């Protein structure tokens, strides 16, 4: 197994330290993403948003966490107990495992294997199983409908997502995330450089990851006006908080991947480094929230139709186009 940049000589030490850095960083990002989203949405709606805890509600995520921890963990009597308890844990594991291969800067990565991108996408596609488990084990009809929608949506949108990710892979000729970022050296970001396919692939990746991470306009599995709360209907307390956290982590990973694959990763004008990476991924993150609080929701069959009739052919065309580009260059 080839290792990416090893900051700390010993792979064990490297793994441990990077794990602590990346995981705590990601958790913090996810927690403050909630705060940011609440503030952002509130300002869009002419509200102040959280103001009470800390300056401008800055301690609100911590207060929420403490509240969730204090709440009782209710299990419905007819629920499938082991699955019900296991599902939220597994839901969090998938995005956390994905973080291991996502570089946040040169060398700032758990491990950068030759199939890093494929690994990340494969693991995040696993998330649907625990989500399904949660919906199934709740033994609630709304949760079941939500699980059904989640499963259908996830398996459909995995394909356009992979096809969109194939474009930078074809252009670079490598699955390694580090190589893909290196290929965008000198501002030739894949979102803009091969003028046609790159940009559309970026859009495709963006919208497919919106669907993968269940964000509006594709938040059908948890459509609360129809399914109360989708799979999380029966969850309470911190175990609900875990699913919630996983969702935000998933969104953050999707935006980080978009930044890495299409926006040049940690490269930018001026010194390269984690600041560019964070800036870009948070920008994509903000756009996701902006869309989330501005658009309405599609119906599930329309979503499927869009996936199979628009996104999938578009993805295939894009992969072909980028392959032709590579050949002609």
């Amino acid at each position: 197994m080839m290792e990416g940049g090893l900051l700390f000589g010993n792979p064990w030490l490297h793994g441990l330290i990077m794990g602590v850095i990346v995981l705590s960083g990601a958790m913090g990002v996810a927690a403050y993403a909630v705060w940011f989203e609440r503030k952002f949405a509130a300002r869009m709606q002419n509200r102040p948003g959280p103001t009470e805890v800390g300056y401008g509600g800055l301690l609100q995520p911590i207060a929420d966490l403490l509240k969730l921890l204090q709440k009782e963990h209710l299990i419905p009597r007819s629920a499938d107990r082991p699955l019900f308890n296991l599902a939220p844990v597994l839901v969090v594991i998938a995005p956390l495992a994905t973080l291991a291969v996502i570089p946040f800067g040169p060398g700032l990565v758990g491990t950068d294997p030759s199939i890093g991108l494929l690994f990340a996408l494969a693991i995040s596609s696993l998330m649907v199983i625990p989500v399904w488990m949660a919906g199934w084990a709740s033994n609630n009809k709304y949760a079941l409908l939500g699980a059904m929608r989640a499963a259908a949506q996830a398996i459909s949108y995995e394909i356009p997502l992979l096809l969109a990710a194939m474009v930078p892979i074809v252009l670079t000729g490598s699955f390694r995330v580090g190589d893909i970022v290196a290929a965008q050296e000198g501002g030739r970001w894949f979102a803009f450089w091969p003028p046609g396919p790159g940009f559309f692939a970026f859009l495709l990746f963006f919208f497919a990851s919106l669907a993968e991470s269940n964000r509006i306009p594709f938040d059908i599995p948890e459509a609360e006006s129809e399914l109360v709360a989708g799979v999380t209907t029966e969850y309470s307390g911190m175990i609900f908080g875990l699913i919630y956290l996983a969702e935000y982590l998933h969104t953050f990973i999707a935006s980080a991947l978009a930044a890495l694959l299409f926006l040049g990763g940690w490269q930018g004008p001026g010194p390269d480094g984690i600041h560019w990476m964070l800036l870009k991924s948070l920008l994509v993150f903000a756009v996701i929230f902006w869309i989330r609080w501005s658009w309405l929701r599609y119906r599930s069959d329309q979503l499927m139709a869009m996936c199979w009739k628009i996104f999938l052919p578009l993805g295939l065309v894009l992969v072909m186009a980028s392959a032709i580009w590579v050949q002609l260059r």
Partner: protein
Amino acid sequence: MSLLSLAQALRVSFQNLTRPKNTEPLPWKGSRERAERYRASFALVHDEHGEEACIGCMLCEKICPSQIISVTQGPKAPSAATGKPRGWCTDFTLDLNACIICELCVQVCPADAIIMMRVQEKPGFAREDLLLTMEKLYANEKLAKLTWATPTKLQEMQDPKPKRPEPVAAAPAKDAAPIKDAAPAAGASSAKDAAPGAESAPAAGTTPSKDAEPAKEVPPVKETPPASDAAPAAGTEKPSDA
């Protein structure tokens, strides 16, 4: 084209980022000014002699649609100030739990005794907290701003053929003129720098002689909030802020 209309939605939500906030954190910092007719809670007031204005006639008890007022009528006794006999109320309770704020009790009061307040009653932890006893009602008189609507003013406003003399200031030949005249007067009283003299003049002019007394006693009541903006009026809102 259709994608442009999706961008329109994004534009609308983005341009709202710059608009002023439309809501306030719940413990009001007192910045919201309620309309002067705003009605929320109740107060019983004293008349101009400093006596309790309620004569215990039980009209409000009879008209209340949700039957939450109970009045105990006391024996007639001479008033200490004027010496004339008048009715007294020995007990008065109003259950705010079931009140629908319809203002009918105010409208029928012949003595201008029950007047609504512009401030919401503080939420309580027990049902008794929202049960307004006679003491609470009389205490409310001094606590916060009262609404513009006294029984006299309401009835004047609704009277199809007012018999009272035409006020000098108001436009003649208009039946509704006195009503319109009363509104700015009350408006001025809620403003902080209203002089008591300017306040009582139109009120005295518009009211017939019988109603002059209760109309006159309103201004001092309404003057309390501006005069003591810091102490008692703030005292009512302080606990809700905390």
